[in-house]
């Protein structure tokens, strides 16, 4: 869903709750997310790259819904109208040394 980028959102007005942390993993506040929309970040992908919210330990499992709600309200649209961010591997946080360590010998896996 494409957002009209020429739309006038009006000035950024601080609001109660702006200090509140929304993305716990990356410690991003409601105010930062709202301001990012006024800075021109209209999609979840842009917000994610701009602020890193949803890119921490939980990979947005807790906050992406909350972030989408804030962004949608700022844009005056429904959260469902906001395109979700893309999903790609690794789906869970993983150390680089593990990710890069591809095993071919399956017999080494510890059996449950």
């Amino acid at each position, binding site marked *: 869903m494409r957002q009209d980028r020429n739309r006038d959102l009006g000035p950024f007005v601080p609001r109660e709750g702006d200090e*509140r942390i929304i993305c716990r993993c990356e410690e991003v506040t409601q105010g930062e997310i709202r301001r990012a929309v006024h800075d021109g970040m209209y999609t979840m992908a842009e917000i994610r790259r701009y602020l890193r919210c949803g890119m921490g330990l939980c990979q947005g499992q807790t906050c992406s819904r909350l972030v989408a709600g804030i962004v949608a309200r700022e844009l005056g649209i429904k959260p469902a109208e906001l395109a979700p961010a893309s999903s790609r591997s690794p789906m869970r946080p993983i150390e680089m040394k593990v990710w890069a360590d*591809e095993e071919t010998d399956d017999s080494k896996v510890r059996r449950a």
Partner: protein
Amino acid sequence: MKRYDLIIIGAGPSGLSAAIEAAKRGMKVIVFDENARPGGQLFKQIHKFFGSKEHKAKIRGFVIGRQLLGEAEKAGVEVRLSATVIGLYPDKEVVVREILEPEEGTAGETSAKEAVFHYKGDAIIVATGASENMVTFDGWTLPGVMGAGAAQTLMNLHGVRPGRKVLMLGSGNVGLVVSFQLLQAGCEVVALVDAAPRIGGYGVHAAKVARTGVPFYLSHTIKKAEGTDHVTGVTIAQVDSRFQFIEGTEKHFDVDTICVAVGLSPMSQLLKMAGCEMDNSGKGGGQIPVVDESGATSVPGIYAVGDVAGIEEASSAMIEGRMAGIRVAEYLGFDDKAGADTAFDQNEKALEGLRQGMFAPGNRGKKIEKTEEGIPVSENLLTHGFVADDEIERYPGVTHKAGVHPVMECTQNIPCNPCQDACPKHCISIGSNITSLPVVLKDSACIDCGMCVSSCPGQAIFLVNEDAGPGKATVTLPYEFLPLPEEGDEGYGLGRDGSRVCDAKVVRVRSSGAFDHTALVTIEVPAEYAMKARFFVKA
């Protein structure tokens, strides 16, 4: 790269069920789960499930989990635990992070070595489930604020009490069931709060919490959690029809724990990554894949079942899993169409049976005024968690007669009927429509065996003797708290609202194996409280 006929991601109720059906048909199946234990959320469900015999009704969730695991093992399903799937590709390749067996000579090594493995399946079933939603309020990041499911994991899997005094936000079935389990774990639940004007979960789940004395605050939500390094209190306030706080309605509670049960979101990212067509309308609780009745996504050979394909509950997840397992076996030629159709139709019927009644998916958000029988629903049950004394007599399970007889305070049409089969004297009838309210048959002879009381997953059946000696009545109630009261204990009878209504004395305590940990406590109360006293506390 290792190949399997079928790779299943998630060893919860739907994933295991799918694995069983596929393996039974001769497929080589592997199930990956990122957790150290299988069963998904089943092993923390210590309550008895609703439904019919086919849905494993009146069996506790963790027992169903054990049965599923046993069945999977017998069918030859390989279950790989602590195995996190980090990628799923359209050509049905799965990338998994797994723990390696420590090599010889590295016995002193403490941290387990991990590595990434690749697998390829001819078919994939994604059964990754859902995660808990959160709401934000001032102080929501303080230690002590947690998901209700997290509290349940602490209590029921790890034996850790999450706190002493708890406020629960959310009156859906998760909020109601976990509140009861918190009480069972010895916590004090100071309030059950929901921003909605009506209770979202089953009335019977609410009623068993309310009768212990937990107050319900509907049209209320949390304003702030208090404390500096952990929760020490909470302030709630009333909200108007647009969910805005109403000034001056604040209420404070001293608590150390706040549980949040405000719904679940499907963990569907793997499906999106694999290129499956997604539905972002929010109707399934979040982003869900577009699937047909067998769980098939838009990518041939990739299926999705259980909560990841739309939030429901464990019983329907298990059936959906079986349906997908059957179709996958047919898709890859392990079963012929006729055989698959028969098995599939059977499960589809069972699933339809579960999706009936007031809480059916199609009724979500609707206000229902009357039961299927045309009886007005209890407004008090929806707003305060209990059926008022002047409402209870209008339901068909609530009758009067001489001697001991069942009183069934079942007032909403839900797909559940174990009580009908529980009575050896056939006193109770629901009929062929599984959502009908239970009826006590007129000419039946109750023998006070208590099987109906213990069979009711909603703990809504009582055995009442309205004339148990001069001026006395007895009430037998289901009791799932420890320590059990003892014969001769004196105390109080609590009303449906949890208030002390009369003096009460325990005259009998039964806890046979057939009751499956639902003890039957019989209290003697003044005759006029026979239809009012519904719980007991020791003086």
